[in-house]
């Protein structure tokens, strides 16, 4: 069978892209609106916060610690050239809290939680469990998607605070090994230049990451077809798409934060 002309194929791909984007945006908007409408499904939200949040803690803490160690080594190598080793704790804390921590937490959670949501809801779709929820007079969208989106939004800042803490701890351990710096001095220097405006906007922006992870993964799960193959695809695409959206949204969010704090936090 001959292939359609290139123009047709490009046109079809563009239409497919716009259809997908529109459909995803509608799904996300509906999740936002339904989050404020009863019933609130507190039990399900709490269950998901436990699953997404507490169960992601080992990954987040270990990764944060390792990132802290690596950042400390890099920061030392750079600042030592200028004889500014005393600024290592502050430089590391600023880099970690303002950008590295939130972005890394977002990407890690999109991998662990996004894949799980996509696969779980996708499997429910292909085994008719979503239809069974509807048949049991339950709003499946609200029960499955909205609760997960809310849980992601709540869990993300908490996990970000944890990765920040673990990173600073990792930085201290690396510094203590090299220079023998006491921990009181390390933490004092870490927080000398930090302000709330460094920590709060950067941490709260991860709520947007959580929203994106929840919406993308739930949407791909809900629209799963083609049996187990489709479930695997939903899981993989959830991670890829959520990661891309996190990175892109981060550019915009950083710009917004700098708009409200024009000179950058101290």
């Amino acid at each position: 069978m001959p292939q359609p002309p290139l123009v047709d194929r490009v046109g079809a791909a563009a239409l497919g892209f716009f259809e997908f984007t529109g459909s995803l945006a509608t799904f996300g908007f509906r999740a936002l609106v339904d989050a404020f409408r009863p019933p609130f499904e507190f039990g399900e939200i709490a269950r998901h916060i436990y699953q997404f949040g507490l169960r992601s803690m080992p990954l987040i803490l270990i990764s944060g610690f390792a990132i802290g160690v690596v950042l400390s080594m890099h920061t030392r190598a750079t600042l030592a050239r200028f004889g500014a080793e005393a600024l290592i704790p502050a430089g590391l804390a600023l880099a970690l809290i303002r950008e590295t921590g939130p972005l890394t937490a977002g990407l890690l959670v999109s991998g662990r939680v996004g894949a799980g949501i996509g696969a779980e809801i996708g499997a429910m779709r292909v085994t008719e469990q979503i239809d069974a929820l509807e048949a049991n007079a339950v709003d499946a969208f609200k029960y499955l998607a909205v609760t997960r989106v809310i849980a992601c939004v709540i869990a993300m800042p908490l996990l970000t605070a944890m990765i920040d803490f673990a990173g600073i701890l990792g930085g201290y351990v690396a510094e203590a090994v090299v220079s023998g710096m006491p921990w009181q001095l390390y933490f004092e220097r870490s927080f000398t230049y930090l302000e709330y405006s460094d920590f709060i906007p950067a941490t709260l922006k991860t709520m947007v990451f959580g929203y994106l992870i929840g919406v993308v993964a739930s949407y791909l799960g809900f629209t799963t077809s083609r049996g187990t193959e489709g479930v695997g695809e939903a899981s993989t695409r959830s991670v890829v798409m959520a990661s891309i959206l996190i990175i892109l949204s981060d550019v915009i969010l950083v710009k917004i934060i700098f708009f409200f704090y024009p000179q950058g936090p101290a």
Partner: protein
Amino acid sequence: MTGSRDPIVRLDHVSKSFGTHRVLDDVTLDIPKGTAFVLLGRSGTGKSVALRHIIGLMRPDAGRILIEGRDIGPLDARGLTEVRKHIGFLFQNAALFDSMTVGENAAFPLRRHTRLSDHEIRDRAQQKLADVGLEREFDKMPADLSGGMKKRAALARAMALDPGILLVDEPSAGLDPITSREIDELLVERKRAGTTLVVVTHNIPSARAIGDELALLHDGRLVARGTASELDRDREPLVQAFMRSQGGG
């Protein structure tokens, strides 16, 4: 015929297409209260689609679905939820929630739609599972059950709120003849208790065992309707071929 002639379910000139494929073509159907109605037909003829329309999982392109005289087409999500509380649905593959135990599955509708205490919910779920012979499987996960047990557990869940209407999609699918007969007997028990059954199947022995009235769907249209003995006497070759078959699930 065991029930009154008041239609509890009515499909009124219902049509549905997927792309260019017309699955239901101007189907009109009355199902009297308290009866067991069996919709027969080959695979892919729109039987399950018809069932999904009755519970509002699909919307018709044309026509109306009436449940107890109420058109469910214009209903919003809340209105549809109220209607669904009075309808049980037994899915072809059971569709048990695999993150919950069998007991939690049976208790799920009670937990969602009643104000019973935890203790009462557990007792009722136990009773529903006992009705289908699964009282000892309360704490098991669905993955630990056989195909027949899953169907029975799904039946317990579908009957948890004692709905007036029970929709059953291919009760014998994937089951051996003995297990299939056990499921049929459970459905007949439900009918005797006054539940209106709408069963979709291509298993003729099962249809004969359950149905007060049978109808044959072919190419989206109803081509025959009547009691089993009436369809046995039908001269239409397709109806004859169907009624003489012993096809299992």
